[in-house]
């Protein structure tokens, strides 16, 4: 219970019908735009997406009820399965290193000190840059004569066609995405680490626990809530990622980077198959919700840690 709510009980109240009427009037007035907005732009579209996913609908015509046809078609659609797989690989491959590296940087960075204060500001720069700008730069970094090939050339590796090789393109996107979001996760984890009670660590040090043991036994369990938050936003962010694949590779070569959001966009607005695109959207939504719930279940455990 918040302090305000606790104080509230003892505080005198202005009550009576006059006050209730005044609150109802002001509240309705302040909330009315929100009610209209959420109805028109979220509730109706969401209901629409569910409905359209059971129809065949090209922009020029009218939606035609086809039952489960879209979902059945999805099962046999190699394009869909390819995108689902690309998204799964992309998500795992970009989330895991982001969190591991993020934690490795956040632990020392969360300690007090002037230098750390400066570094904490600098580490956010990639995250604050627009994704469109970073995508442009990274497409030049991954170009034939780009920085990536120059750097691997220094250790004697042959230049590689990063963005046009089926085996490499997705990994190039993973590298860029990890780099882009790392600072974000570092800062969130740093804030979480700084909020941990220092007495526990002092007690552990007195008991003779080494830094590694203290990290595994105290820091990680106490940080669970922050880790869960980072994990959920990282996974959901990766599953919805559209811009890097759109700007760096356009989903190519040969569909190797055609993530699900890109496939959805192309299905709906490239081929104007709105019903099928909506069915893909539903699958994406269910997958995101299921994964979030799973993460809550696994990491939340019994206590409210």
């Amino acid at each position, binding site marked *: 219970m918040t302090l305000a709510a606790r104080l509230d009980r003892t505080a005198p109240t202005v009550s009576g019908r006059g006050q209730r009427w005044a609150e109802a009037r002001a509240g309705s007035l302040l909330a009315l735009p929100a*009610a209209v907005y959420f109805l028109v732009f979220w509730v109706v579209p969401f209901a629409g997406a569910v409905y359209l996913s059971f129809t065949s609908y090209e922009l020029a015509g009218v939606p035609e009820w086809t039952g489960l046809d879209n979902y059945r078609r999805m099962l046999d659609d190699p394009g869909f399965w390819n995108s689902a797989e690309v998204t799964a690989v992309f998500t795992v491959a970009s989330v895991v290193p982001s969190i591991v590296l993020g934690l490795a940087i956040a632990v020392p960075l969360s300690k007090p000190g002037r230098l*750390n204060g400066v570094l904490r500001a600098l580490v956010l720069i*990639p995250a604050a840059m627009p994704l469109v700008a970073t995508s*442009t730069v990274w497409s030049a970094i991954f170009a034939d004569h780009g920085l990536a090939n120059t750097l691997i050339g220094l250790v004697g590796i042959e230049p590689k066609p990063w963005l046009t090789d089926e085996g490499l393109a997705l990994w190039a996107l993973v590298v860029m995405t990890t780099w882009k979001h790392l600072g974000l996760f570092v800062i969130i984890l740093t804030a979480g680490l700084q909020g941990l009670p220092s007495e526990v660590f002092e007690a552990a040090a007195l008991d003779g626990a080494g830094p590694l043991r203290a990290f595994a036994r105290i820091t990680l369990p106490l940080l669970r809530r922050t880790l869960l938050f980072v994990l959920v936003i990282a996974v959901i962010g990766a599953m919805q990622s559209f811009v890097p694949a759109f700007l760096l590779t356009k989903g190519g070569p040969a569909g190797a980077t055609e993530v699900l959001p890109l496939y959805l966009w192309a299905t709906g607005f490239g081929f104007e198959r709105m019903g099928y695109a909506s069915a893909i959207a539903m699958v994406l939504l269910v997958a995101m919700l299921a994964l*979030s719930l799973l993460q809550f279940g696994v990491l939340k455990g019994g206590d409210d840690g």
Partner: protein
Amino acid sequence: MRALRGTLLSLVVLVMLLPVYAMFALSSASDATDLGGLAFDASQLGEHLSQLFAEGGFPLYLRNSMILSLGVALLEVVFSGAAGYALAQLTFPGRRMLFAVVVGTLSLSPIVVLVPMYLVVRQLGWIDSFQGMIVPFMMSAFGVFLVRQFALSVPRELLLSARVDGAGELLIFLRVGVPLLRPALLTLFLLQFLAQWDNLLWPLVVANDPRLWPLPVGLSQLQTEYDFSIGLVSTAALVTAVPPLVLMFVLQRYYVAGLTLGGVKK
């Protein structure tokens, strides 16, 4: 130990900033063959800048992005602010229902409702218009939720003493509520500005007219338009990155507060 840690951390951060530096170096690249170098040539960058602002497209994209981002951010602050305050502090009919819708919407994202949202905007006749780009994002579940959480901690006695003084509810909102909500509203302004500055998907869907394109759509087009003049495209990327970076540094406290919302135990 401390010195070693500092040196190591500094090195890691430097490596992270290498691509940012590469953006500067690339902006001064004269042709597609010197992409791998990290030399920076200020005069070449100046030339690219004047070229970029002399041609039709880019200044227009910049202006459109300003209209879109400022418009969305300001509307968010006003309307999500009002709704968040009302949900936290006032009792009115439909309050529970509205809150349930807000919480439900939190788990949806634009990509999920992309098709029907487009159909709604088309129905309203807003394809190829600023309304079509701005209004669908003029509020957000995240924004309402953020303001509500923050407004819950506003001490009731403050509102109460104003009520005892006979002030109307709307006046109390403006005079007492808004000043207290300032940090939350600033955070919201910043996050929504940054989000719209970087929004590619929605303008791509609703704006076919190049005169309405904001920077993300324009930039993706420049890549093909200038026939791989990497120097020019990187300069455009550099200019695009400046407003968010400036805002982020000025409002860093609010930025971090927004990011860590929900992730840190209070």
